[in-house]
């Protein structure tokens, strides 16, 4: 089956999947705090739209509920919480420097190719028209991990983490048309609780090392103080 044989709604699902992948790249390249929160919100909205489209195409009514929950949680509530948090921490306009941005983008492109090869045998087991997006959702997961590895700012690491969750949810929707409702609700609340806990952690980290740069957690504060007194 090539794309021309799909119906227009099915093609639209593929377009939305490709746009989700693009937002992952945008998250990886975005160095401004507020802008990356906005991109994250857009990713959530696109995942929700794709879920709603799949619900329409395959007549799976429970997916409408999942889409609504994703929209409310990932596109509105969590970005709003993150936004309030960065406002409170006073880092809303902070620009984070990514080391070797071009190399990171190339690594992300390589991850897309890698996930395509890994997902090939899985796709052969499925006959759904959305099966080719399994590779996309895997790439979203891997790029989220790459974002966590390359950033030192705690808030962007959390955004990377949340985008991994977006990728996992998307994978579940496109490969099996969604998880059972109990599991889905559990994960949704997990993510919500994680967002709240991360907020508390940010404030704690900030209080103890006066910065959100997690690289500074590698250093022992007492030796620093000793060095300071010696000098």
């Amino acid at each position, binding site marked *: *089956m*090539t*794309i*021309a044989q799909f119906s*227009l709604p099915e*093609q*639209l699902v*593929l*377009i939305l*999947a*490709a*746009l989700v*992948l*693009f937002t992952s*790249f945008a998250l990886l*390249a975005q160095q401004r705090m507020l802008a990356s929160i906005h991109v994250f919100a857009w990713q959530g909205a696109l995942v929700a739209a794709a879920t709603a489209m799949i619900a329409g195409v395959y007549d799976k009514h429970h997916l409408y509920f999942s889409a609504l929950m994703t929209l409310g949680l990932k596109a509105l509530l969590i970005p709003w919480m993150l936004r309030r948090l960065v406002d409170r921490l006073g880092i809303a306009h902070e620009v984070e420097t990514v080391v070797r941005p*071009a190399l990171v*983008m190339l690594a992300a*492109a390589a991850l*897309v*190719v890698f996930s*395509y090869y890994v997902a*090939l045998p899985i*796709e*052969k087991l499925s006959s759904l028209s959305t099966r*080719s*997006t399994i*590779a*996309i959702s895997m790439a979203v997961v891997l790029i989220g991990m790459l974002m966590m590895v390359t950033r030192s700012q705690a808030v962007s690491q959390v955004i990377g983490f949340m985008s991994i969750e977006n990728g996992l949810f998307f994978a579940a929707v496109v490969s099996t048309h969604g998880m059972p409702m109990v599991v889905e609700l559990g994960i949704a609340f997990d993510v919500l609780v994680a967002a709240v806990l991360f907020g508390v952690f940010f404030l704690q980290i900030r209080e103890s090392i006066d910065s959100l740069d997690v690289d500074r957690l590698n250093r022992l504060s007492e030796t620093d103080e000793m060095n300071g007194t010696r000098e």
Partner: protein
Amino acid sequence: MTWAGWLLALLQAALFVAAAPLLTIWVKRNKCWLQNRRSPSLLQPYRDLAKLFRKQVVLSENASPLFRSAPYIVFAVTVLAAATIPLISTQLPTTAIADMIVLVGFLAVVRFFLALAGMDVGTAFGGMGASREVSLSALAEPALLMVIFTLAMSAQSTNLASTVQYLHDAGLVLRPSLLFALFGLLLVAVAESGRIPVDNPATHLELTMVHEAMILEYSGRHLALMEWAAQLKLMIFGVLIVNIFFPWGVATELSAAALLIGLVAVLVKLALIGVVLAFAETALAKMRVFMVPQFLNLAFLLALLGALSHVILEVDI
């Protein structure tokens, strides 16, 4: 039949060259309306060109023959590039040479002579403009080629006319790869034709200018040819975008009715893209020169994602 075809191809190329200043002034008019200014008349670029052709050429003392021949080479090669592009019909005899990689080659030749001419007289502005143009095009060209490869993967050909024909015959198919290629090509087109936010075509003597810096030493008919070539380049990218990504209405047979529909369709589409360009130029500010590489990296990334999404999403394993 063949001589009629060649005649039509000649007419199409002449129309292309004649309409290029019209597209430029159309964009300018829309910008004026958006910014509450009074716009110049639609004939203004033609009057400017006529005035420049009548004026005397002033040459610097140390201008070499290359400096004097560069405008003719630049204009001729740009016209040649324009002649290969299917403006109204995909069935003309020029389609055999309408390869997209050849087109990129033509544009590279133009840029080579522009940069050489910019450096020839030895003024600081010319050298600066040439160096910027070359470094920007080193980033824009791979992105443009990547867009072409993405298109070629769908259409199974790098021939421009058969690509347009294929996409026209396929009807409305929402391809993720074409979406990314479209945005990639839009960014490349903005950079290559020197529009805001990469370069400002309306300024002289500004430290950020690129294209204007290279042609600063030209006057008279030389300047007229250089400016006409720049207007042609904008038209080339405009026609590429509308005819590849929105090929509806393009004439796929050589009948009078089909050609007329093709003409009207391409004019409407170019008018629309002119409005879009005017909106974009009004909404955006010119970016710092050091930000342009990031802009072009984004274009390359979009084109690369287009190629990847074609492989992942659009073909069967």
